[in-house]
């Protein structure tokens, strides 16, 4: 029983990370119906830039720098990979271009930071706290709180500020928003910037618990995609729940079955959800109009 509780607690922390990255997918999908297939690489870059900066500034001061870096990186991805494809309505175009950018980023990171996994200094004590026999790393608490805080901050920005309303309007109807004088291509660039920012933030949250390195992105990006689909690409609640489902099933499979198989249930869940309820567990099904 105690082991089960322990596994669930670890699963929650992992799941929140997936949730934050998945939230990034939602941001761009809402405005442009495109996604960054290199989202994992955005996370990896954020984490490695953080690693370089943290040596100079310490953990907490590093955060705003990494967030700013994420914003810029996302804007670059949109400009180079997505804009042209949106213009020509070429779906394979943006899928391949964002994959290509991901490959380039990963290769550059390998050349700058090397191919090995690196240790990221933890800002908090690494001794676990014990609650009724269940061990929790202080950093895991920061992950959960930080992830929720970031998602809430972005949501609040979208709902309260006039810029956020432009984002929501573009998400609701890009053409109509454009006719109302909203520069929708700027909004789309901005949504990519925000999306990479959340990924970079997730990167520096998760790095002290795991390790960091040029190859950390791919798997995380894919899992977050599972989460976004399981929860629904249109539901903020969905990514949190989806993340938790995936994180917990993973730690459970890893322990009870084999660590080699720990990625399988999430992917199978993804395929099942797509077969049975493609809008996701929390998504709304759109009515097709002819």
């Amino acid at each position, binding site marked *: 029983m105690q082991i089960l509780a322990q596994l669930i607690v670890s699963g929650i922390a992992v799941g929140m990370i997936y949730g934050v990255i998945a939230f990034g997918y939602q941001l761009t999908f809402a405005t442009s119906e495109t996604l960054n*297939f290199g989202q994992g690489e955005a996370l990896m870059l954020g984490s490695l830039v953080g690693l370089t900066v943290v040596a100079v500034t310490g953990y907490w001061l590093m955060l705003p720098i990494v967030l700013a870096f994420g914003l810029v990186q996302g804007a670059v991805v949109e400009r180079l990979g997505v804009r042209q494809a949106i213009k*020509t309505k070429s779906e*394979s175009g943006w899928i*391949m271009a964002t994959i290509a950018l991901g*490959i380039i980023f990963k290769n550059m990171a390998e*050349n700058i930071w090397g191919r090995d996994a690196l240790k990221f200094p933890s800002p908090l004590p690494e001794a676990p706290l014990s609650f009724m026999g269940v061990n929790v790393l202080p950093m895991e608490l920061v992950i959960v709180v930080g992830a929720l805080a970031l998602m809430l901050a972005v949501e609040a920005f979208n709902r309260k500020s006039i810029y956020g309303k432009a984002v929501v309007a573009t998400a609701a109807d890009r053409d109509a928003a454009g006719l109302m004088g909203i520069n929708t291509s700027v909004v789309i660039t901005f949504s990519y910037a925000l999306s990479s920012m959340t990924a970079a933030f997730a990167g520096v949250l998760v790095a002290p618990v795991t390790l960091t390195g040029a190859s950390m992105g791919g798997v995380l990006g894919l899992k977050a995609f599972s989460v976004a689909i399981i929860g629904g690409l249109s539901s903020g609640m969905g990514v949190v729940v989806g993340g938790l489902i995936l994180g917990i099933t993973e730690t459970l499979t890893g322990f009870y079955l084999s660590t080699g198989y720990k990625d399988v249930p999430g*992917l*199978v869940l993804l*395929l099942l959800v797509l077969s049975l309820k493609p809008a996701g567990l929390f998504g709304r099904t759109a009515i097709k109009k002819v």
Partner: protein
Amino acid sequence: MRKLLALAGVAALVAFPFVFTSPYYLHLMVVVAIFSIVTLGLDIVFGYTGEVSLGHAALFGVGAYTAGVLAFQLDWGFWVALPLGVLVAAGFGAILALPALRVTGPYLAMVTLAFGTIVAILVNEMTFLTNGPLGISLTKPFFADLREQLPWLEMSRPRMRDVEYYYVVIACLLIVLVVISRLLGSRFGRAFEALRDSPIASDCMGVSVYRHKVLAFVLSAGFAGLAGVLFTYSEQYIAPNNFSFDLSIQFLLAVTMGGRKSRVGPMLGAAIVVFLPNLLADIALFRLVAGVIAGVAVVAGGVAAVRNPEQRLRAAVPVALCLAFFGFSLWLQQITDYKLTVFGLMILFVVYYLPDGIYGLLRQGLARLQRRGAKAVAPSSAWTAPPVLDANRPLLEVRGIVMQFGGLRALDTVDLTVMPGTVHGLIGPNGSGKSTMMNVLTGIYVPTAGEVRLEGASIAGWKSPEIAAAGIARTFQNVQLFGELSLLENILVGLNHSYRSGAAEVALALPRARREEAAARARAMGLLQFVGLDALADEEARNLPYGKQRLLEIARALALDPKLLLLDEPAAGLTAPDIVVLMEIIRKIREHGITQILIEHHMDVVMALCDEVSVLDFGQKIAEGKPAAVQANPKVIAAYLGGDHAEAADAEG
């Protein structure tokens, strides 16, 4: 001309082992041929149905591991593995396509990516079956020792074996080429393109999107599996990391860069992808190639700038990029660490500047040199025997139909009775539920309640392809043509129901398949003639002016040999002379015994053509009867002009 080139290509492939005697190049050619089989198959899914598959490396791996496991566990050899590899991979393709029932686009890309990851994990973990990360070794088959019969070959035994294997692979490639060309030139290829351009119209033409998508995936996976088996025996060793996500990207890059929707393109792309690692291993060679590309770009850009001075700036960008790339190659001291960056840059460049691939570019150039004459098809009659119907029984009966969208009742207990042989008008203000009714009748929406009967048989809840097969055809308010298909091919999609031959018969080009194709083409030409578009038969549908697109839609719907034809605002956006033509067409369709429901806002058209008119307003039927009576009905006037007029009309009436 094409045949000559193809023959020359085959001759070159046959002569290759004797021209280049180096085993290294022979092996590279084998790998090119194997990758070509994968990319040709991938093109079915990627080029034709327009879906991005990131899982083809896994399907390739399934084929490879089928061969590997059979050899490793059971000691079964090449000839058993070949068919089994195809079947097992095709089976996996079917599993992969099942979620495709509901999703498209990025979702489908992700499904394939997840599938690829699962396969990679399973291969790695199921050590008892696959030997896990250690991989499987086996030996290339030795088919026959021909050295005694053909002493002039002067080959050592290993070389004999390699050359024989080369010919086996080339034979497979040629068979694949023929089969794929036949399939894609047939109704199946047209169906794949149709479902890409307009899934809804495909379903309503009786071409089930789901079935054809699954078919495309299964075919594509089967070819990947075949290639996998050949790969295993060519390399004589396979391990899980042979079939990673990167390989899927390489396949996609190959198809895009070579040129989609062609046979030459994917093969060209496969050759580039295979030679790429060699190119990227040698800095001098890399610089040379980058230099040549830059030179070609400067020349091509110069030509483009002279020919089209206004587009100078646009043309200058790729040229500058090519030059910068050359500079980058000079700056690089060593290349192995930057392999993937170069690879990524290539993908970006192709996506931006070569969306139709190298072959697409060449084809454009060739098309300018030689205008391809349209292949003349002699038209046969547009009409088959008119449907035999009981004149006294309603053809279509709609009883108490309700269509609820959340809080909105788009149709509220509507009844509709359409007698055979009539033109039944359905009018009403915008948003009154006319198009919703069309969508309910053709199975796009499943009604919340109520009954729809066609010749007495209930069809409510049927899927669109079934309803199309039962005899209801339609046109669309916002035209839904298959844009990249020619006019003739658009009609041929509608004639899909007239074929009995299956994919295997088409692949073997059996007489029945060829006969059916010829008959369908003649009939399609007849239908084009009926709407006056036969002169444009080989034009792509998206290039037609709007009015003609609507006529083409009608001809396509007639190809279904419908009992009931639904016309959704056929006159919208048409010029006055076009409307006259349209009215004549509708009259002729009625003469041929086809019942029609006509949604239209042009009242003169409705009044002139319709035998009966039903009026909808806010989802309810407010009037019905002869056109003149309906026109005078105060409720109808009120619906169109607003409440005050109704009261005025009431007072007067």
